């Protein structure tokens, strides 16, 4: 009926030698949620910054709400809302003052903004803290305030750049609910994330990007199917057991087992649900492998990435810095 809310055509942005965007193409139909999925440095934030007029692409086209971002940035700013990776709130201002300020800078009527601020504070469960400086807020409250501020002008198109990164699981689920309600109200959302579960939860369509270009797209189901179903993951007692373990479970999997030296982990794609675990334990046992942990889980971004690009989603440095090594538990919380 109407043209898409967001269009990118061959977007290119280079920083020195690095191509942050390398011919990015995507389309977000009006009233839908698109999840832009990729590891750190894939170009997600650069893409969002290009759509929200924060940077000029070197070449290519970005159209938001039917308006060319490069030609009429000021018109684009009137119809979008942005919540970035770092909560863009003024910590000395109260929650209410933050929303009021943003509303005034959207050039909205001051009386209307006051009413809108009350409504948003109520809706995002910040009413009790409304008159406290944002400095005193928890991480989750700051994100909610940030999101509330970006909604003050009722933007038709909302950009969320890793909205839940750094949040604890409870705050993350709360924020998901808020976003789901916005979508019900008809807002178009482009959301970036590093978490497949998050895209899974919120987005109808997922676009996976790497090194500034699209490497896969589809619904979360099609993406998961494309990587060969569930994963069995075993953690062995001794690093020397990695190879025997991989060899033992290889016949049971749909893919070559992948070994990770750092945390003595072997992963393989399987089908057949939980019954496969019995076979895995049996063959590992007969190979004399001692286990620390064993789990069956849904594919993650890492798996999608490994399958699509042949390398893990995140380099070891980042991987090691992330405190989510206890895979079994982390996954249960997230899904």
């Amino acid at each position, binding site marked *: 009926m109407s043209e898409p809310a967001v269009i990118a055509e061959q977007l290119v942005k280079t920083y020195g030698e690095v191509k942050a965007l390398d011919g990015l193409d995507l389309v977000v139909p*009006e009233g839908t949620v698109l999840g832009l999925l990729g590891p750190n440095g894939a170009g997600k934030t650069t893409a969002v910054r290009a759509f929200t007029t924060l940077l000029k692409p070197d070449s290519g086209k970005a159209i938001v709400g039917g308006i060319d971002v490069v030609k009429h940035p000021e018109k684009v700013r009137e119809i979008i809302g*942005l919540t970035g990776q770092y909560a863009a709130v003024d910590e*000395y201002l109260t929650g209410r003052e933050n929303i009021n300020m943003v509303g005034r800078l959207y050039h909205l009527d001051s009386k209307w903004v006051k009413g809108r601020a009350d409504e948003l504070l109520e809706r995002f469960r910040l009413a009790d803290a409304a008159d406290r400086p944002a400095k005193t807020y928890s991480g989750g409250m700051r994100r909610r305030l940030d999101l509330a501020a*970006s909604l003050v002008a009722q933007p038709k198109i909302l950009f969320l750049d890793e909205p839940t990164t750094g949040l604890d699981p409870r705050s993350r689920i709360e924020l998901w609910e808020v976003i789901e309600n916005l979508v*019900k*109200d008809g807002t178009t959302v482009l959301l970036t994330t590093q978490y497949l579960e998050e895209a899974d939860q919120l987005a109808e369509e997922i676009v996976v990007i790497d090194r500034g270009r699209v490497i896969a797209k589809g619904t979360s189901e099609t993406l998961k199917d494309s990587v060969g179903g569930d994963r069995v993951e075993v953690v062995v007692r001794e690093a020397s057991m990695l190879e025997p373990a991989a060899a033992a479970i290889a016949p049971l999997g749909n893919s070559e087992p992948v070994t990770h030296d750092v945390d003595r982990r072997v992963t393989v794609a399987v089908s057949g649900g939980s019954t496969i675990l019995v076979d895995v334990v049996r063959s590992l046992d007969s190979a004399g492998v001692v286990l620390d942990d064993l789990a069956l889980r849904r594919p993650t971004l890492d798996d999608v990435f490994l399958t699509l690009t042949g390398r893990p989603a995140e380099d070891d440095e980042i991987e090691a810095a992330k405190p989510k090594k206890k895979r079994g538990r982390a996954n249960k919380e997230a899904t």
Partner: protein
Amino acid sequence: MSASVATPARASGDEPVRSSRPLLGWHVHDGVVVAKRNLIQTIRVPELLFFSLVQPVIFVLMFAYVFGGAIPIGSGSPDAYREYLIPGIFGQTVAFAAAASTVGIAEDMHKGIVDRFRSLPMKASAVLFGRTIADAARMILVLAVLSITGLVVGWRIHNGAIDATKAYLLLLLFAYTVAWIGAWVGLYMPNPETANTAGLLWLFPVTFISNAFVPLGSMPAGLQAVAAWNPLSAMVLACRELFGNNLGQTDGLADKYWSLQHPMAYTLISCAVLLAVFIPLAVRKYRTSTSH
């Protein structure tokens, strides 16, 4: 807005009501909104405000009592030096408004808040106007505290309220002007920590190579010329004349330097020129760092 954007159904809230165009235009409107935010910050960090008031007071006391006897002015008595000193301290203090702007802008630029501002349909200049307006406005309070301190140590206003008001307005204009230079410097700072140090550096020669603390007659010829053409010297001299603290401190140099002969006119011209240069420079720098 483009006609091609259909309005989606929305469950909550009325359609946003746009504000009508304000009398003074959006530049002023947006600048004032941001200035208000900066002033609220000042109130919310009372410790910072307190120490920014204490510092010039300490300067008054040190110069009045430590250097006072050593710098001969007028009759040569320490009392005369105190009369001479206070407008100088006023000048130095408003000049240091620039350092606050440098730090403030550097902080804004390195926090998430600047992305928020840049994605809003506000005027890009508002971040800079808001900063400079707030920093100059804060000087009203600082000058009030300093004036009281001055009165306590023996400084007096001799020429009545109208001239005194002119002097204070001149000081605020000067504060606003240097705040723009400070804001421009702040845009080049790699981080707020550097801004804290670098923002002050250029202010030391500007305030000390002047007549703020010592008479120009005591300086070697080359330095004297620099000091005489320093807009701060002209402004301080104009204030001394307006407050009636004129104690023959030009040492007959007024004939030699036009800036000292017409201190008020020279100050106004300097501020106009500096604003005409630094407002566009700063706004352009802000814009280009916006879209790299």
